[in-house]
């Protein structure tokens, strides 16, 4: 009886040790080399998986960078700091890149300024509203206010508040541009962080038509364009558009003179 216990213990033990040794040996022998850079880069990325780089998630981007298939500058949420870290890991020169842009909402049509001409009851997303009934607001260019941008933002940096307009928290905004993509009416634009002047309207309608639906819309008077010599603000058809590549050196007079106060100046 005792010998049986001993034999079974020993045989199982030897089998176990044998398999263990075999696995250990095989584990060493068959080790798959994983590029350590991939993991390092992935750790340095913000991990929001926002997809702003164009790759499926941060790990996809890390892999592409490590293989040299992608430039190190694509991660806009991470910004310059991430770039620096990746440059160190990859051993390439890091150029001081520009600060990431920030989202800006080009619409002033909140609940008080824009007229409503219907009572919308349906799917409560901007996309659904835009492609079906045009929603309850009278302006067909302006913000619908159902928060597709809020939904798209991985960083909780944009919120549709009670006034019916999305507001960007600039400190949180990483400039990934997902909200701009999500907006069916292309109201959100990615602008430089140091931009000073904005035209908060995207309506291409004639002045009287704009005034009919919204108190704060661009009526196309072109006063602002004339004041900036058609450089910073240009007229695109009947809408004033800011060219963010041109630095604005003036003061708030342009914003003050705007008859519908649709121009915003940040000092």
């Amino acid at each position, binding site marked *: 009886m005792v010998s049986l216990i001993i*034999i*079974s213990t020993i*045989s*199982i033990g030897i*089998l176990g040790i044998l*398999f263990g040794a075999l*696995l250990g040996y095989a584990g060493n022998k068959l080790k*798959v080399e994983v590029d350590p850079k991939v993991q390092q880069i992935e750790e340095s990325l913000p991990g929001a998986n926002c997809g702003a780089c164009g790759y499926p998630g941060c790990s996809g981007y890390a892999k592409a960078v490590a293989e040299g298939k992608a430039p190190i500058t694509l991660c806009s949420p991470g910004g310059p700091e991430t770039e620096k870290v990746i440059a160190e890991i990859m051993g390439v020169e890091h150029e001081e890149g520009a600060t990431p842009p920030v989202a800006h909402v080009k619409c002033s049509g909140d609940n008080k300024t824009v007229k409503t001409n219907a009572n919308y009851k349906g799917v409560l997303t901007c996309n659904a509203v835009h492609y079906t009934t045009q929603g309850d607001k009278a302006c067909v260019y302006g913000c619908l206010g159902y928060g597709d941008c809020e939904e798209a933002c991985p960083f909780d940096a944009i919120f549709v508040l009670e006034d019916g307009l999305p507001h960007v928290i600039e400190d949180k905004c990483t400039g990934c541009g997902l909200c701009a993509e999500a907006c069916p009416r292309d109201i959100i634009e990615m602008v430089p962080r140091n931009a000073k002047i904005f035209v908060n309207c995207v309506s291409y309608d004639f002045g009287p038509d704009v005034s009919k639906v919204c108190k704060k819309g661009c009526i196309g008077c072109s006063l602002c364009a004339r004041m900036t010599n058609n450089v910073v603000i240009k007229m695109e058809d009947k809408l004033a558009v800011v060219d963010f590549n041109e630095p604005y050196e003036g003061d708030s007079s342009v914003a003050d003179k705007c008859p519908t106060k649709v121009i915003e100046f940040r000092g």
Partner: protein
Amino acid sequence: MELSRIFIIIISASLINNFVLSRFLGLCPFIGVSKKMDSAIGMGMAVTFVLTLASIIIYLVNKYVLLALHVEFLRTVTFILVIAALVQLVEMFIQKFSPILYEALGIYLPLITTNCAVLGATLINVSEKYNLLESTAHGFGAGVGFTIALILMSSIREKLENSKIPESFKGAPTAFLAAGIISLIFLCFKGIIAE
């Protein structure tokens, strides 16, 4: 004569005594991995591979260790040990030499460690006193049967995804019902071979 016996063993293991549908072994992956055809095929392949290999090795272990030392009562423990080690080894091997296959099999490969169909097949090998060739054939047949069951089930479940089902029957209940009906159908194979 030998060849026909091998053939009968394969047919018997895959259809007549189908491991999932007649012996009710390996039901966990049968329900868990049968939602999509692709993964069902991958899992089936992996199980077939491991079953065949495990049948060979366990035959040797059984004959030259357990029977030689007269410690047959250690069968279950030893077999589990062998299967677990084998699956690990196979996993390493595939990862090294075929990363594509490794990614295709994904999580299913380590899952086979705890698949009772593998243990069941090897235990049946021993109790039926199959020789090495017969054991291999039986293991392979069992794997093929498992694959057939998974593919059948996944094709049905893919169809079920798009059909109107009462709320309370959605998901697992319909899957169980379908499994029961396929199992009933497989009973019809019982008359094929007159023992």
